[in-house]
């Protein structure tokens, strides 16, 4: 995966109004293109929308779905909250962690407690989630 550079970010965001209200949509665009929000990318977003870089970082780092460190096309999150933990969430998380080099995140309730345990691979939800199910989605994702 190649990361965006300031010039590509400018063009990625070209059609968004140059204002603060474009920040969240802009962060999503860059994150979906890169799988990470690097310091450089955040600075370029700030530049493009005329928002101070520190504030861009402050907003981006607040949200659980954005990663400002590890780069990954489809981060894996397993819900280990109250309901899913009654239905094998911790075991699924451990099993995934045992097999993957990339991090596997524990998430709070994903809003799919009717089919536990729930997981997200990138933006795709799995409920109920299984090792095989997660593998299948990851296989379909471009490295």
């Amino acid at each position, binding site marked *: 995966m190649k990361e965006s550079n300031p010039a590509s970010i400018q063009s990625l965001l070209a059609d968004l109004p140059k*204002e*603060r*209200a*474009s*920040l*969240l*949509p802009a*962060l*999503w665009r860059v994150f979906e293109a890169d799988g990470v929000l690097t310091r450089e990318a955040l600075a370029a977003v700030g530049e493009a*929308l005329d*928002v101070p870089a520190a504030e861009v970082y*402050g*907003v981006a780092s*607040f*949200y*659980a*779905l*954005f990663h400002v460190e590890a780069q990954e096309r489809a981060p894996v999150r397993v819900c280990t*909250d*109250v*309901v899913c*933990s*009654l239905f094998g969430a911790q075991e699924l998380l451990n099993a995934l962690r045992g097999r993957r080099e990339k991090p596997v995140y524990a998430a*709070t*309730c*994903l*809003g*799919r*407690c*009717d*089919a*536990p345990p729930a997981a*997200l691979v990138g*933006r*795709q*939800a799995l409920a109920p989630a299984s090792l095989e199910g997660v593998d299948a989605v990851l296989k379909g994702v471009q490295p």
Partner: protein
Amino acid sequence: MRRLLPADDTVSPPLSRERWRDRGYHEAWERALTLGPQTVIEWVTAAGLTGRGGAAFPTGQKWASVAQSADPVKYVVMNADESELGTFKDRALLTRDPWGALAGLAIAAFAVGAHEAYVYLRGEYADVERLLEEALALAPWAEAGSYPLAVRLIRGAGAYIAGEETALLNSIEGRRPEPRVKPPFPTARGLWGHPTVIQNVETLANVAVLLAHDVAWFRAVGTEAAPGTKLMAVSGHVARPGVYEIPMGLPLWTLLTAPEYAGGIGGSGRLRAVLLGGAAGTFLTADECRAARLDNLALQPFGASLGSGAVMVFDDTVEIRQVVRQVAGFFAEESCGQCVPCRIGTRRLLEQLSASTLDIERLRDLGGAMRDASICGLGQTAPQALLSYLDRPSLWPRTSKEEECHA
């Protein structure tokens, strides 16, 4: 009892124009335009509709206050952030009948005089997002009427606190989703300082079915104080987890056991407790579950409320103290950290609940301080489930009951 959720034999596809008509939304929108803003607000008020997102505030009252503002710029926002623990009813509703809430949003905009509307959707709901994008492209309300309305979809990015109405406004504005101090309320100063109506998905869907019928029809179901239906998200140890629409006031036991609802206790088959209303909810013992009715007035004696409509069911193999600790972990994780009682309090609660014996006196003091001194609902209600647990010794671990009492 189906009003918001279409009947099982509905054949029109969720996003079709036939569905828009079949469900009466075409008629509802035309009726709103004919009645005029003032009368629409009177209907919503007379129907006794209250917010379905947790706080149960009278909807008509909010609309009236925004409508009467002299500010020419107004906004309406649909809160589809749905991140409360155990809550998935808005996802079910938007998936099974996407037009309802959107028709309600258009009616709300018309009633208060807003020409811009926002739908704020939780970032984890990519499946719902695809439906909503398609729906907004079709925009059947733009054909029938002459009322100009632009609707924008905003995708959240994983923050429970962003569902709090003022944090949500900050998120849309491109700021950190931290709650603002209230007052001023969003109805006075909302998006970019302009009067703003924020409603939950289910509240707006109720507006649409109300306008598709009339006030008497709306009030024919439910109770005097709480007319209408409520979507309940039932999860955990039941035979059929899922979203069920109930008349307000239905016995909780019926929801848990009737074949048309959750169909009986699952797991070991023996009920230990229910956590009603989400992470900021109340634990009810098995006996209380047999006695409680599902409307806020009837739940008062139990110190409970419907909250977001979450019903988490635990069989007798579940250690409730463990659940209490997880709930405390949820709040410690999701506190925005802006104010001290909540930032420190949520951590302290978690620490104390991780200890082997509980200092009940200290926990109650801490909970009281958080309830009184936190800025927003998160900190104010974070101790709620814990306090309800402390009030119900029958839920404490059998072995440590003595110990906890004297700790």
